[in-house]
């Protein structure tokens, strides 16, 4: 105790006084607006429209959503202008989604991405998406059944990515593809439909600019090529002749639905100069629905089905890859496989942009129906 008094006590006192006095600026929940969604769009020449969806917590426990929009040349400048129009300080720590308007996507997203990456306040796990049409009217229109727009859009994107109905688009993944000299990225497209919002498609980018779009149902094909998946669902229209004349005569296709899809893909370079790739996808699934009254417990019928599924998937995946080659957007990251498997590849953006449209991919799908339901 004696020692403490003579030497340590003054220090402890100073330390505690400093801790009490020298605090940083406090953020009190009732006095801030939490920006949950920010949208950027381009108006006119170089003017950036920033729209923020904010949530304010009131002392009477009712939270309300607020939408503010402004134009300026930098996003921080936009934030400052929005600040002038709100009664509470804006914080972006709870930001979940950043949306880009179509005009901005045509102009290029590079600078916006850098800004998001530079900020330490914004997490790398937030989602990016593109909005079809004008962003301001998309956000400012009155959605009757959506009380909290920011949270709604976040959950819409998140659960669809989890179920592999949309391409994953966290800031980290997008900037990773953006910086990886040999890949391009894809963003989900959001669209307003009457009083609702839906994911309407996939936007393909090349060097930061939008070059093409695919429909939303192609997302799973893209996912299958990009990554191993373990929880997918899809509907396929097989030719009506697959199972002979057992099928219902009125429809043009034999529709099947598969779920619990586990797929494993392998990509190997077979020819370095062309380049040519072999893409093999192994697919285990459950037959969930089949619009036919045929009894599917015979091994022969299952085999026929598998064969047709393989054919159908191969053609669909080929179509998607071909489209991406037409618009020169390597969203499947074939370039990274090329770099990984070819020594001293010395890839750069230009070289791969020239090679990618010439690329040839041999797609092989090996589907296996493991089980169907509890009733045959």
């Amino acid at each position: 105790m004696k020692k403490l008094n003579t030497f340590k006590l003054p220090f402890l006192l100073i330390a505690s006084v400093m801790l009490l006095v020298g605090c940083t600026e406090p953020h009190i929940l009732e006095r801030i607006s939490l920006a949950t969604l920010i949208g950027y769009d381009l108006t006119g020449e170089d003017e950036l429209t920033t729209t923020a969806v904010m949530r304010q917590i009131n002392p009477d426990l009712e939270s309300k959503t607020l939408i503010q929009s402004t134009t300026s040349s930098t996003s921080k400048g936009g934030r400052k202008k929005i600040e002038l129009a709100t009664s509470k300080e804006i914080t972006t720590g709870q930001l979940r989604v950043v949306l880009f308007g179509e005009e901005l996507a045509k102009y290029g997203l590079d600078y916006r991405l850098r800004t998001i990456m530079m900020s330490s306040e914004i997490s790398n796990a937030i989602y990016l998406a593109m909005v079809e049409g004008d962003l301001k009217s998309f956000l400012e229109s009155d959605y009757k059944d959506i009380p909290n727009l920011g949270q709604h859009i976040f959950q819409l994107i998140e659960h669809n990515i989890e179920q592999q109905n949309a391409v994953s688009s966290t800031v980290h993944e997008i900037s990773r593809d953006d910086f990886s000299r040999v890949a391009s990225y894809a963003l989900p497209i959001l669209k307003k439909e009457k009083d609702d919002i839906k994911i309407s498609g996939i936007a393909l980018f090349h060097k930061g600019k939008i070059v093409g779009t695919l429909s939303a149902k192609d997302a799973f094909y893209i996912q299958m090529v990009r990554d191993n998946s373990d929880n997918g669902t899809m509907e396929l229209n097989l030719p009506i002749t697959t199972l002979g004349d057992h099928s219902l005569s009125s429809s043009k296709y034999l529709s099947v639905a598969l779920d619990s899809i586990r797929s494993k893909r392998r990509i190997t370079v077979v020819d370095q100069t062309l380049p040519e790739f072999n893409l093999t996808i192994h697919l285990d699934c459950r037959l969930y629905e089949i619009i036919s009254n045929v009894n599917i417990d015979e091994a022969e019928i299952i085999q026929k089905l598998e064969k047709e599924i393989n054919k159908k998937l191969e053609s669909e995946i080929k179509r998607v890859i071909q489209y991406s080659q037409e618009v020169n957007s390597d969203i499947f990251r074939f370039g990274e496989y090329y770099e990984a498997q070819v020594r001293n590849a010395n890839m750069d953006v230009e070289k791969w942009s020239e090679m990618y449209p010439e690329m040839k991919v041999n797609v092989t799908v090996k589907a296996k129906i493991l089980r169907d339901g509890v009733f045959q």
Partner: protein
Amino acid sequence: MKKALQVNPTQMFNAPLLLFIICAAQIGVGVHGFQSFIYEHAKKDAWISIIISFLAAHIIVFIIFKILQLYDSNDIYGINLDLFGKYFGNFVNLALITYCGLAYFVIIKNYREVINTWVFPDLSPAFITAILLIIVIYAFTGGLRVIIGICFFSFFLSLFIPIILLFPIEYSRINYLLPILDSDFISILKGAYYMTFTIVGFEIIGTLYPFVKEKKKAQKYVHFALFLTLMFYLFIMFITSTFFSGEQLERTIWATLSLLSIIRLPFLERVEIITICFWMIIILPNLCLYAWSAYRGFIRIIDITEKKFILIFSLLIFIAAFPLQTRIQIEKFNNFFGSVAFYLIFVYPLFLYFIALIKKKMFRKKGGKG
């Protein structure tokens, strides 16, 4: 010639504790962002650079022990004095003390920068520095045993970091590591050189040696500690280089922290903020050990009490911290420190061993004649 350093038995500690001391001394602020520096040179083979740098560290530890074993129980400062005489020996000691001060300074500066960038942009840098200095003064005056206690706790409390680093594996792409050995050997060596800033810390054994109870066992534990930190760094490097794509990693300043920012736990939105604040417990042993090491050298030159020393030392650091403010200055200073550390830690022991061997031989000859 070989006058042993007198150490009070109550101040000594058991050899196994060296494991925690060396690990705690090595893991510090470097972990936040060492990846991008190595990647810049060694590219996809950055992990090979790390292995090479640790092999070098093992060799240096081996040599430091060889030097220490030439003397019964003496530290590196005593050995310098013995080999080079009073004046030049003290000069070399002063260089080593300055090195300790620089290391201390670099740690505080970098940690302060991280706090200011990630957690509290508007917090005064002087305040953070002062708080850190006060904690170190408090721990330092407790003596060596308290410092070792801090090392022990720092080691065990930081075990959660490898576990949370498992979350980003979801985003890993193994393609970023292939093909192995794509970079040429020179670039890999350059990458290993840039590891210096992150790997230093083990040199503390030169000062700690006289305080180890079982001197014969000491070396084993130091090597084992090096192996543990190697595993830790390799693990981080593997996760980082599969997580980021090439240029993205080069542009990321604190790769480990960016890596953590993707994690979203149900009860915790931003793991990296907690980790940064927690990092103070990880850098505390570094700071204490360097201050202590500087003190051990300083009392050879001027007889001074622990309290006076740490007060003057802290005051100097506090004043020196003012001119260095921007990120670029800190980066430059880090590089400068890296090269100083490289020569003092990786080159100087080889030289010292050489001199010590010659001197030993000369004395034997003299002894034979006389």
